């Protein structure tokens, strides 16, 4: 399984990322992608953007562990995980997960599994930047529940 993990400030291109995965094998039957975006509306109100903090070193190793666990559960040809850090504005792309496999069931399940695990296990923290100040986003029980179903 080919694995690409990137923690970066810069934006990413879906087209470039999916093209790289398609080049891996002529026997690829399915390519599932997930893109997470910065929403303007949060539970606490409207935000201008987000600040993303992470734990360098542990972030990369935890994402690698999650991707390798997905590779043990489903037959995958390639996995790409990109997570942006630093300051992002509403509407920006924040996270990208792509899973490539011979068949769609594996690619769909693995992509969802990776996102559910990423949200509860990878050391990232979001701070909302609003008109009237800044506040840290609280972890959601629904994300915990989503990761526990696997």
């Amino acid at each position: 399984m080919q694995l690409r993990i990137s923690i970066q400030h810069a934006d990413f291109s879906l087209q470039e990322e999916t093209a790289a995965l398609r080049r891996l094998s002529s026997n690829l039957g399915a390519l599932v992608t997930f893109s997470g975006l910065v929403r303007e509306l949060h539970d606490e109100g409207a935000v201008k953007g987000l600040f993303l903090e992470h734990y360098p070193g542990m972030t990369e190793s935890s994402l690698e562990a999650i991707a390798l666990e997905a590779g043990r559960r489903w037959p995958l040809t390639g996995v790409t995980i990109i997570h942006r850090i630093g300051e992002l504005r509403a509407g920006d792309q924040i996270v990208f997960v792509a899973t490539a496999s011979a068949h769609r069931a594996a690619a769909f399940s693995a992509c969802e599994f990776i996102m559910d695990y990423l949200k509860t296990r990878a050391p990232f923290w979001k701070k909302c930047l609003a008109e009237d100040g800044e506040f840290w986003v609280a972890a959601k029980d629904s994300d915990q529940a989503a990761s526990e179903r696997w």
Partner: protein
Amino acid sequence: MIDVRYFASLRETLGLSHERVAVPSPSTVAGLVHTLAEAHGGRWEEALRAGRVLVAVNQQVATFAAPVQDGDEVAFFPPVTGG
């Protein structure tokens, strides 16, 4: 010495991102928290013992009972909110 790191809201609450402390060897995360509270005061222990604070030893999620020794990196942080 132990490398201690604090992240996100916990880093802001404590006003510190990184410090190096000596602990009697062998010790545990709980022992380290006790040492930190002695150095900084009770407020520190309260913040680190708060219900949902997570700990990682050498970048692996651990418990407060986990052993720590000289040269380890121990990080304290709130529940993660990436993605």
